[in-house]
């Protein structure tokens, strides 16, 4: 699908400017929605030091399915979705999604759906390491 500009799961830090640029300069698109999910320093009142992300070898294929589904539902003219794995520090981007559509409402909605669907259906796991030295798997 030509609309997909960047798609992947990476061990190196993600670049917000690169993801944004990848969906820019599409003459037919008047609204670009960008979401970045970053590592937060607390979870339910407990201090978080680091998040360890791992994924299934097929995770990229599932990510592509999520993006293709959104392309089938919204007038997306350009889209990028990237996810990071490895050990991430506070403030680092774990996921970035950018969607360019003719108008803002569909760009917001499509971006929102892609982020929700990534959380729901892409086999990525998060090990949360707390300031007190303990750790837990998110969602288990």
């Amino acid at each position, binding site marked *: 699908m030509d609309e997909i500009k960047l798609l992947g799961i990476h061990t190196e830090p993600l670049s917000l400017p690169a993801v944004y640029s990848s969906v820019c300069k599409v003459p037919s698109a008047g609204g670009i929605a960008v979401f970045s*999910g970053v590592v937060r320093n607390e979870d339910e009142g407990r201090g978080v030091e680091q998040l360890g*992300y791992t994924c299934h070898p097929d995770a990229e294929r599932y990510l592509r399915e999520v993006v293709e589904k959104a392309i089938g539902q919204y007038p997306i003219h350009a889209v990028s979705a990237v996810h990071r794995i490895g050990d991430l520090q506070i403030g680092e981007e774990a996921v970035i999604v950018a969607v360019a559509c003719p108008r803002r409402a569909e760009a917001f909605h499509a971006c929102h759906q892609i982020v929700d669907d990534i*959380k729901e*259906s892409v086999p990525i*796991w*998060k090990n949360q390491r707390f300031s007190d030295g303990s750790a837990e*798997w998110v*969602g288990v």
Partner: protein
Amino acid sequence: LATVILRYWAAAKEAAGASEERLSAETLDEALSAASAKHSSPDGRFATVLARSSILVDGQQAGHHAADDLTLWENAIIEILPPFAGG
């Protein structure tokens, strides 16, 4: 009985203390029960993770427990995927 491969991911790998193991079983339910028995512990960690995981057999979704009576074949790969937590 078929010899099958169980492949554990993330929390399941941690609870099993291994990423992969082989065992003999006739059905999916039998294979998962055998794995549960093998990895049982006082805190029931493995069973808890397993109950919340989705199961793939040779890459195909076997549902949570919808296909427990699935008859296994030689070298089937059963993957245990804990709840996803991307983003």
